Structures are given as C-alpha cells and as structure tokens.
C-alpha cells in the first residue's frame, strides 16, 4: 500500500515539474504579448498626447496588465524625485521585476531605455515601435517553442515519474 502511495506521489511530483516547465514557456508568451500591449499604449501616449513619461508609463502599465509591473516601477522611480534619467529608472525596473521572460527578452526591453524620453516625438515613436516589433518576433518564437516543447515537457514529466516508479519497484 505504501509503495502504491509513494509511486503515485512520485508520478504526481514529476508530472507537476514537467507542467511547470511547460507553463513557464506559456507565461513567457503571454508576458511578451502583454508587454507589446503596454508599448502600444506608450506609443499612443507619446505620439498622440505628448504625455510626460511618468504618466505615459502608468498608462502603459494599465494596458499591459500583469506585464505592466516593469512600467509601473519605472514610473514610480521617475516621480520619486531623485533626478534619475528615464534610462536609469527603466533599467532598474527591468532588473528588479519578476517577469516570466528570458534574458534575451530582458535585453530587448533594456534597449528601449537608451535615450528614452531624451529626443523628439518622432524619434521616440520609432524607438518604441522598433522594440515592440522585436518583442513581437520574440513572442512568435515563444509560441513556436511552446508548441513544440510545451507538450514535450508535460510528457517528460509523466514519463520520468513512471520510469522512476518502475526503477524503485
């Protein structure tokens, strides 16, 4: 009886680990999509209303849902009055945020920070659009990765659990 309970627990645990890896891939895809929504809102605020960055980032955060933490943190750093540049604030918020994205995705976001807010409207819009397009291709890659690796991770979880049970039996 104890062996059966142990076997079931091992299979559940390994299956969960597999699902966790698959979920991480799925979350990355969602997060990248949310960040793009945020950047679209930022483009709108900068281009249409010439809204200053703290308020524009707050609007972007609203549009980006859970992915908006990076925008909210940057906006907070800008309004706290320490005289940080937008680049410093954005870099700090990327480093401190718990986003489900890869190191490469973080680098794409970090590239947005260089010169953020420091040039005219057209230049800012080009810069934000470029980063949004790079995130879009990262999202496409994340989708493909999930399509191919998502199922694999889930199956590996079950399989490893079953193999371990067989080995112990």
């Amino acid at each position, binding site marked *: 009886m104890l062996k059966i309970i142990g076997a079931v627990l091992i299979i559940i645990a390994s299956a969960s680990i597999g699902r966790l890896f698959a979920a991480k891939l799925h979350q990355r895809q969602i997060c990248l999509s949310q960040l793009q929504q945020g950047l679209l809102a930022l483009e709108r605020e*900068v281009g249409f209303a*010439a*809204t*200053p*960055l*703290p308020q*524009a980032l707050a609007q972007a955060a609203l549009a980006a849902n859970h992915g908006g933490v990076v925008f909210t943190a940057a906006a907070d750093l*800008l*309004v706290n*009055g*320490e*005289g*940080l*540049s*937008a680049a410093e*604030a954005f870099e700090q918020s990327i480093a401190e945020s718990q986003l489900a994205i890869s190191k490469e995705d973080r680098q794409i976001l970090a590239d947005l920070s260089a010169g*953020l*807010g*420091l*040039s*005219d*409207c057209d*230049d*800012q819009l080009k810069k934000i659009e470029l980063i949004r397009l790079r995130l879009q291709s990262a999202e496409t890659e994340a989708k493909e990765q999930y399509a191919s690796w998502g199922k694999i991770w889930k199956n590996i979880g079950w399989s490893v659990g079953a193999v371990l049970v067989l080995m112990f039996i």
Partner: protein
Amino acid sequence: MSVALQILPYLPPSLRLLLASLTPVEWKIMEEIRLNLNLPVSCRFHDNEAFVASGGGLTNEFGRAHILNNKEMEQCLLLLSQSSFYALEEELRRGYITLPGGHRAGLCGRAVLAAGQVRTIKEISSVNLRLARQVADASLTLLPSLFDQYNKLCSTLLISPPRAGKTTLLRDIARQLAGGRMIEPLRVGIVDERSEIAAMRGGISQLDLGIRCDILDGCPKAEGLMMLLRSMSPQVLICDEIGSEADAAALIEAANAGVKVVASAHATDCDELAARPVFAALLHAHAFERLVVLSRRRGPGTVEGIYDQNLQPLEAGGLVC
C-alpha cells in the same frame, strides 16, 4: 502649498537640501533662483541677490557659494522635464518650461535651428526659476481706473519690463472681474498660452480665478482668443504677453466684436510701445482704451501712469498695487 514645496522637487537632491535650509521669510520674498553651470547658485529677492552657501543658507561671498556641477544641472533638467523632452518640444523651442503653480523655468544653452527657426535648445547651461505668486486683491487699487464714466470696463493693456508684476495683476484682475465681489461679475475667458495665469494642472486651476472663468490652457493666443470668442460667449478676454502680428489681429477682431480685452505686453512706457509696429497698429485701431504702465520703482506693481486710447495721461503714477 507653499512656493518652496512646489519648487524644491524640481531641484537636484543635493541643492534641494541647501535651499530647504532657507528661512520662510527668505522664501517669501524670493523672486528667482538662478542655476548656471559651474557658477554659484544664486537667489534674487526684491532688491538684492545672494548666493546659496555650500553649507546651507545664503552668503554674499563667492568662495562660500555652492557651485552647480554638471551632474546637478543634468538632474535638474531631468526633473524639470520629467525625463520627457519630447513632451516639451514647444516649450524648449520657446526657451522655458512652465511648472505647476505657474512658476517658470527659463532655459539658456545652444539653439538648434531648422529652416532658420529655433527647433530646440541643447547643451543647457543656465536655468532661471521665476517664482510666481498669487497676490490676492493686488488689482483693487487699480481696478476703478479701468472703468469708464458709465461704469463699463475698458479694454486695457498692462505695460512693463519683465518682473514688474504684469501677470500677477492680470491674474487678480481676472479674479476680481470673474469673482464679482467688488463689482458686477463678468464672464471672463482666459487664453493662458504659457500656463502662467491659471497654472492649470489636470484641468483644474491651481490659482483662484473666480467662478466665472473659462480657461484655454496652452493654446496660442491668436487662435485661443478666436476660439473663446466663438464658443464661450465671454464678456472679457484676458491674455498675457502679446507680441506677434497674429496676436494683434486677433485682439483687434475681439475688440470689435463687443468684447473687452485685458492683456499685457513688454515695454518700458507708451513711447517704447508705440515704436513697435505690432503695437502701433493696435494703438491706431484703438483696441485699448486704457494703457497702464508698470515698473518696479517702488516694488513690483508700481503704477507709473494710466493713459487713454490717445496716450493722454488719465492719472499720475506712484500708486503701488
């Protein structure tokens, strides 16, 4: 909110500490804070100027003064612009940024030209923070002179060099006319191109302008005067620092549309004003029935003289608003 609380957040943290050490009295009489790169930070008062000491407080000794470094200037510009230069393209083109409370940060540096016009300013080396204050009832002594014998408001132009109290008076005239506490209230329309008269923030005026005031914020004067005239049925139109031909044309249009206009302009006296082509046209069209010349001779708001539309003196000067 006090002026210090409004201004300090826009200064670099190191300088903020030094200026926070100034006494409330010093803040009360302060008119300008001047920041020049690699030079002492100074404060201008009614009739004197002092450096900000590196240990806090004020000093007249150059050696004890706090010298503004590159990092502080950079921080100050980031704070003034909220790190959003793209949102201030028009302000940078004109050389100043208006802050909440109606305060103004004048900027000097290297002008970048495009098609012969100033596109922006870069390598900023000087920032002049001009502190705005609402002086309640500042126009009360002047106001009776702005009405004719039938008790009708006359279109009025306030004339003075910078720092003589034009905007303060204009703001209080608007408040008195729209508030109607001393006189029959009038519907006032304000074109606040530089956000100095009303200091609008999020659609709410930061300064008291009476209850019958429509404020068009950040709009070019010529366009704004026509917009207000057509849409808000004002009895009085108010705008600050007119100077272009378009402004003059719009003022003449408004003056001939049954609306009274109260405006201000830079000049030392009526002769200087009349020598400028734009104002010569305005005077010729009798767009203004009263010209009030102001100076700082006995403090900001000193009335040097009040003239009629033919530039004939109506009242002697000496009055202080």
